[in-house]
């Protein structure tokens, strides 16, 4: 009986997939891996939400090395996956050579906004705005007047995070010290929790009592060490408050999940072009839930929400690192 049932089930599954296979979306996760608790996991959550809601299926691959990028893109495009969603700036160059070969396939590039192409949907985020808000919170929570920043790979994108963070902290307390470190200069820096932990300890010895990790999987080590050493930390991309309840001040949300979910939902009708998701579009923000509620005072929340409104209205301008490759509040 049960064998019969599973056979029937398998037959039904084949029938269903045979009908829809040509338009299954696909996700290419970057080198950090899909369960990095951060950037890639946010994409996975968005894709999963879509799958749960629609009952659809999607294809996925976790890249193992730089050299696989182009192969994965071509393979999904040739198998008829549409749209093909890619994570991270590392896909920009492969996309620029692959996308023109498959004009009927739509490609989504998260964290990329500098390519040309009819069939590309490029989604970037105003990370400096979200980081500004968590920077304010860090400065308000700090008792030592020193806050830390730990970046993943040293690239303009991560400096962009750090710059917004430093501006937010200095807006609250002009005399605050911001200690900033990067984990490395290669993609390996996205997945090095041990080094993240060491950097956290080094920043604690310099007096930091709140650290913000914008480092993908490396951040797991930062948050762990901060919790162990009794200081506060700030998560990134996904809501990481639950990792150490009561020890994570907040998380700078980058709604990669929303971007992925919306792309999958639109399916083949996906609108192409360049999109920026900032505070106004709720593409970035800070996380508030039961896990960090005791840490966020009413004053803190009021101040941050006020700043958020001002940024959306355009009354408050957070300088972008991209504008002139330098930061008014922090030198690297």
């Amino acid at each position, binding site marked *: 009986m049960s064998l019969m049932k599973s056979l029937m089930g398998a037959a039904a599954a084949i029938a269903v997939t045979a009908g829809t296979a040509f338009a299954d979306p696909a996700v290419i996760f970057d080198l950090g891996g899909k369960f990095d608790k951060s950037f890639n996991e946010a994409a996975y959550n968005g894709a999963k939400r879509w799958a749960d809601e629609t009952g659809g299926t999607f294809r996925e691959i976790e890249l193992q*090395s730089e050299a696989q990028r182009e192969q*994965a893109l071509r*393979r999904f495009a040739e198998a008829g996956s549409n749209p093909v969603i890619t994570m991270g700036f590392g896909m920009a160059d492969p996309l620029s050579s692959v996308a023109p070969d498959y004009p009927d396939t739509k490609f989504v590039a998260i964290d990329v906004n500098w390519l040309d192409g009819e069939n590309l949907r490029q989604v970037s985020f105003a990370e400096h705005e979200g980081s500004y808000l968590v920077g304010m919170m860090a400065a308000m929570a700090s008792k030592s007047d020193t806050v830390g920043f730990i970046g993943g790979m040293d690239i*303009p994108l991560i400096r962009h995070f750090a710059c917004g963070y430093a501006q937010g902290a200095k807006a609250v307390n002009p005399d605050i010290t911001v200690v900033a470190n990067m984990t490395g*200069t*290669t993609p390996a820096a996205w997945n090095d929790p041990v080094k993240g932990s060491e950097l956290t300890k080094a920043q604690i010895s310099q007096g930091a009592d709140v650290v913000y990790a914008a480092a993908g999987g490396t951040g797991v080590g930062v948050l762990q060490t901060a919790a162990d050493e009794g200081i506060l930390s700030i998560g990134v991309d996904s809501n990481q408050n639950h990792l150490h309840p009561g020890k994570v001040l907040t998380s700078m949300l980058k709604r990669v999940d929303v971007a992925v979910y919306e792309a999958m939902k639109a399916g083949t009708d996906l609108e192409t072009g360049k999109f920026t998701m900032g505070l106004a579009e709720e593409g970035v923000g800070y996380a508030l839930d039961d896990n960090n509620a005791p840490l966020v005072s009413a004053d803190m929340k009021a101040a941050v929400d006020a700043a958020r409104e001002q940024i959306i209205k355009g009354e408050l301008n957070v300088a972008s690192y991209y504008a002139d490759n330098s930061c008014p509040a922090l030198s690297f």
Partner: protein
Amino acid sequence: MEKMPKWADVVLIPLISLLLAAALSALVILGIGEDPIEAVKTMITGALGSTYGWGYTLYYATNFLFTGLAVSVAYHAGLFNIGGEGQAMLGGLGVALICLFIPWPHWSIALIVAAIAAGLFGAAWAAIPAYLQAKRGSHVVITTIMFNFIAFSVLNYMLVNVLKPQGAMDPATARFPEAIHLPSLHEILLPLGINFSKSAPANVSLLVAIAACFVVWLLIWRTWLGHEIRAFGKSESGARYAGMSPLKITMIAMLISGALCGMMAINNVMGEAERLVLNSTEGAGFIGIAVALMGRNHPFGVFLAALLFGFLYQGGAELALWSSIPRELIVVIQALVILFTGALDNMVRMPLEKLFIAVRKEKA
């Protein structure tokens, strides 16, 4: 000491090792609740079922041909070159410099010069460990491994600080100019009426690699230098007594080995990526060791083993794409094959040898 017949040594042992590895891999796949037969099917159709699959399999095989030949040349001189990874990285740097900064009129000239540059860079990277081995007795295994790390750091520095285009995020060079695009198998085979997949990266370097097989065979078995290398590898004191210079042979064998590893870059850097990225070698330097061991250090054996490992690489990539087997386990499966064919050679060889001897005694 009695020996088993040659066919058993060359065919039977690798085959049994391979079957053992496959059986263990099947258990691993079963253990995570996937269907091993389905996995094998995915690997075979993905790697050999289309010209696309063949294109990738041959592309990977080209890499392994170069590194496998490199390891076997050093091995004939009794040297174990574990630095293939670093030598190939440096070869990539040589190719990138040649392709980026000199405007070539035609790919064929660029290919020749780039191959020479890649060989020189790779050989230079092997020269220091070779000299330390010959003059100071610093073991070449240790120094070549250390040089892999140094090569990675050099490449990292060059990409991040020197060669990365202004404003770019990922540590990679700019694209090489269109003019030096190497013809892919698609472009080579089209005039012959064969429609090979357009998007597969196998390219003209495959022919260079096959030519290299022939040259290495000539060198090792048909030249005086090859004779010296083999004599030195079999017995250093014997070679010394015969008036051969250990310094000269160590240096030459390692330089050839390094040059072959470096030349791999014409395939992966110039032929496929057409720019230099970090980790472009994808572990081919280490796979070369397994390829050489499995191929019994003979160019033809290396050729077959390289094909097998090309199949494993491409099959593994297909497995990652079309199944829910996590990427870590695909590495485990590839590692099992390397373990059995390379490292655990004696595990199969000894019982088999005993068996052959026992059977022979019975007959006698």
